[in-house]
């Protein structure tokens, strides 16, 4: 069991790397499935549109899913209609764009992985570019080939052209080579940009590296504790409500934080070098020592939901 624990601990420590590798494998698998099962190049003048749709639509879908699964998105937008000042606080209008930028960068990981895998494979690009009717591009691709190349390039992807095999094979290889070079360029550019942005963000960080590591651990633990306490209170409250409903008894008081406290606790936290706070809740707790405004829930008038204590 000890050995198993050590192995498990090792894998938990490497969870970022394992997560990204798993995502990469999933993308590769998904791309393979798509190109074998769903993708059928039409080999007509519609090649360009078909190829581009298959290349970019999954990327767009992955981007939207990335926005959906990021909890910061919902922290930013929840309740913004009722209180627009929450997103654009006075004196700090760039705050929204900064946070949205961070969320977008996180969400872009999966689409970029899809694009690089799809370009390295070459099928979608080959189909799309064989249907491009741009004269400059056609001259560049067909420059030492027969006249048929200009008219029948779009049939090359399905091996249905009347050109000799060597010529059509060379055209296919050229298109695939272009696709793979583009794929590598996408990967290199992304890697370089992410290293530069991480560097800039790290340099401008208000706290040191070790404290930042502690902040991450604390955020995780606080999330866990909140889940536990939500479960506990939700169970208690629902038990009490159902008991009172079925047994027709007076409900006993269960104190819960006030609406304003929930509103304050839902703000996105930004680290400050002067204050020693690790989260919004930590800040609330330290700055409000007289006690969070408690709402005595039993005194609520259920008809118009006002406090009637």
């Amino acid at each position, binding site marked *: 069991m*000890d*050995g198993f624990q*050590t*192995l498990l601990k090792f894998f938990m420590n490497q969870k970022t*790397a394992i997560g990204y590798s798993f995502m990469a494998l999933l993308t590769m698998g998904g791309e393979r499935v798509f190109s074998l099962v769903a993708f059928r190049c039409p080999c007509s003048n519609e090649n360009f549109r078909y190829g581009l749709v298959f290349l970019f639509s999954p990327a767009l879908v992955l981007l939207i899913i990335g926005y959906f699964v990021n909890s910061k998105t919902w922290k930013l937008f929840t309740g913004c209609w009722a209180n627009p000042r929450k997103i654009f606080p006075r004196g700090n209008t760039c705050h929204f764009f900064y946070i949205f930028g961070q969320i977008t960068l996180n969400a872009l990981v999966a689409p970029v992985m899809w694009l690089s895998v799809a370009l*390295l*494979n070459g099928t979608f690009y080959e189909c799309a570019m064989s249907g491009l009717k741009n004269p400059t591009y056609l001259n560049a691709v067909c420059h030492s080939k027969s006249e048929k190349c200009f008219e029948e390039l779009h049939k090359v992807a399905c091996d249905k052209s009347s050109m000799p095999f060597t010529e059509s094979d*060379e055209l296919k*290889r*050229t298109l*695939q*080579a272009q696709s*793979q*070079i583009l794929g*590598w*360029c996408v*990967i*290199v550019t992304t*890697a*370089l940009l*992410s*290293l530069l942005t*991480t*560097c800039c963000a*790290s*340099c*401008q*960080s*208000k*706290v*040191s*590296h*070790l*404290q*930042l*590591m*502690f902040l991450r*651990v*604390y955020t995780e*633990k*606080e999330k*866990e*504790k*909140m889940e536990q*306490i939500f479960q506990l*209170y939700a169970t208690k409250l629902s038990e009490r409500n159902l008991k009172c409903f079925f047994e027709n008894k007076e409900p006993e008081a269960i*104190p*819960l*934080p006030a609406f304003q*406290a929930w509103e304050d*606790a839902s703000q996105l936290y930004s680290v400050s*070098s002067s204050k*020693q706070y690790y989260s919004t*809740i*930590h800040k*609330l*707790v330290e700055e409000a*020592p007289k*006690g*969070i405004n408690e709402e005595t829930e039993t005194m609520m008038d259920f008809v118009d939901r006002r406090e009637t204590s």
Partner: protein
Amino acid sequence: MDELRRALDFCVCHQTILGYSTVSLLTAASEQIFSSVVFKCPCNSGNMLYGSTFLLMPAFILFLLGYMVNTRIWRLLTGSCPPENHCSCSPWGTCTQYCLVLAVVTARALVAPLTWIAVALLSASFYECAASGSSLMEDFVCKGKGQECRKLLVKIPCDEKLSKDITAEHLSLQAQSQLIGWLLIASIMTVALIAKCISRCDSPARYRQLKLLKTYSEKEQELFEIKAKEHATRLAEINTNYFFGVTDPVPFQTPSNEDWQNINSLYTFNSKDQYYSMLHEYVNTKRGKSNESGQGGQ
């Protein structure tokens, strides 16, 4: 179970070497996958660009990844230029420290890319494709053989028989690639040995002390993580309980921002003080100062 435990202990003892070997094996495996599944030399004038892209771009990406996963560089960079200072940072005194750390981190980050290049050269497909499209190779191999030779040279990666015909008097492209690969491996090993000798000669600590230093760093890192988790759990419990009104505020001692800043910088061992880490130095000097102030107050 005993054997499994012994095997795991062995792995933990030699984890650096095992780590580098795993990285090298993974790089070699992915190179094989790439060259057999993905790589298709176009056999035309684009050979040089295609071959060199497959040879050099993955190496560059692995190099960047090597930087990203190295914690030393982030420990040095994080918080080094906060917006309050308006970027009037990096005094000259710490420039040598930055350069030294950057040199060490670069050397470690170079392991994976050089493995990729070496394995790629040994398996020869990328070099063969790139060289068959290069004008230097054209001039060398096709001297006095006319235009036909140049046209056929780019087709070599797609047709093995052509290689024997055209490069009969010289080393074949594949042989050239493997020769360069072995030379690269030999020179890297030599440079690594010389660099290690120089760093050991220059070291302020002795051999056995270096071992203790390494073991101490690992143990401190391990215990730091455990203690940080415990501390974070206790603090999170106190805060969430107070938020829900379960308990009253409980005083809880947590290190200040200044304490964190003081233990953050990278430590260089010196034979005079004999501290084994920044934490060790900070704890000893802080306790010394607080003892003095305690006595002064009496």
